[in-house]
């Protein structure tokens, strides 16, 4: 089974885990599945559940599918202004 490599950057409340994390998932994984892996890598950090994954131009939906390596960001609930 082919794998793809993801680089996920951290923001806000995820900064306590460092700058980001890298891992491989099966090609064709959904964003929901990738969040599941991230949840596991971050020791069940509940913040993941309220967060979204995004690429550099848009927020990805839970049912979006990834077929190639990607640089993503995990965005916790926002509080700008």
């Amino acid at each position, binding site marked *: 089974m082919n794998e793809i490599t993801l680089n996920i950057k951290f*923001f*806000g*409340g995820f*900064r306590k885990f460092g700058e980001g994390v890298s891992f491989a998932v099966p090609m064709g994984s959904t964003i929901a599945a990738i969040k599941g892996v991230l949840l596991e890598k971050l020791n069940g950090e509940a913040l993941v559940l*309220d*967060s*979204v994954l*995004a690429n*550099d*131009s*848009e*927020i990805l*939906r*839970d049912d979006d599918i990834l077929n190639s390596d990607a640089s993503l*960001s995990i*965005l*916790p*609930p*926002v*509080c*700008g*202004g």
Partner: protein
Amino acid sequence: MSATIHASLTSDKINIQNAYDFVADDAHGAIDVFVGTVRNLHEGQNVLGITYDAHEGLAKNVFTQICLEAQSRWQGAKIYLSHYNGELDIGGISIIIAVSSAHRANSFEACRYIIEEIKKRAPVWKQEHYENGCSEWLPGHSLNEANSE
């Protein structure tokens, strides 16, 4: 034709006059400017300062998108929006939104719309630093809602 929207994320000190000068227009009789600053108190705790964090590329996209929405609802508005990224002391300016229009109702309403949407949608976070030495990232609005739209 000159630009009618300025939307930026900056680590330079935010300047009110710059915002005013951008939106000033001979055909506009009303300018509303909203300024957000760092307060010394939050939920009973003494705050010393705030560190802002932001996803630069996405934040700029969202800022521009919100300004365009405002322009389509309040036609002809000129908009200056600048959000700070980095560390701020008490009193520091975290955001400025200036909107000019022919008449005052539009300026007030568009300005209010923009700040409310930014609070809900812009990928920006803040970490408060307290007098007791602790720091905390504040809770906020989940962007997950995008999944249910």
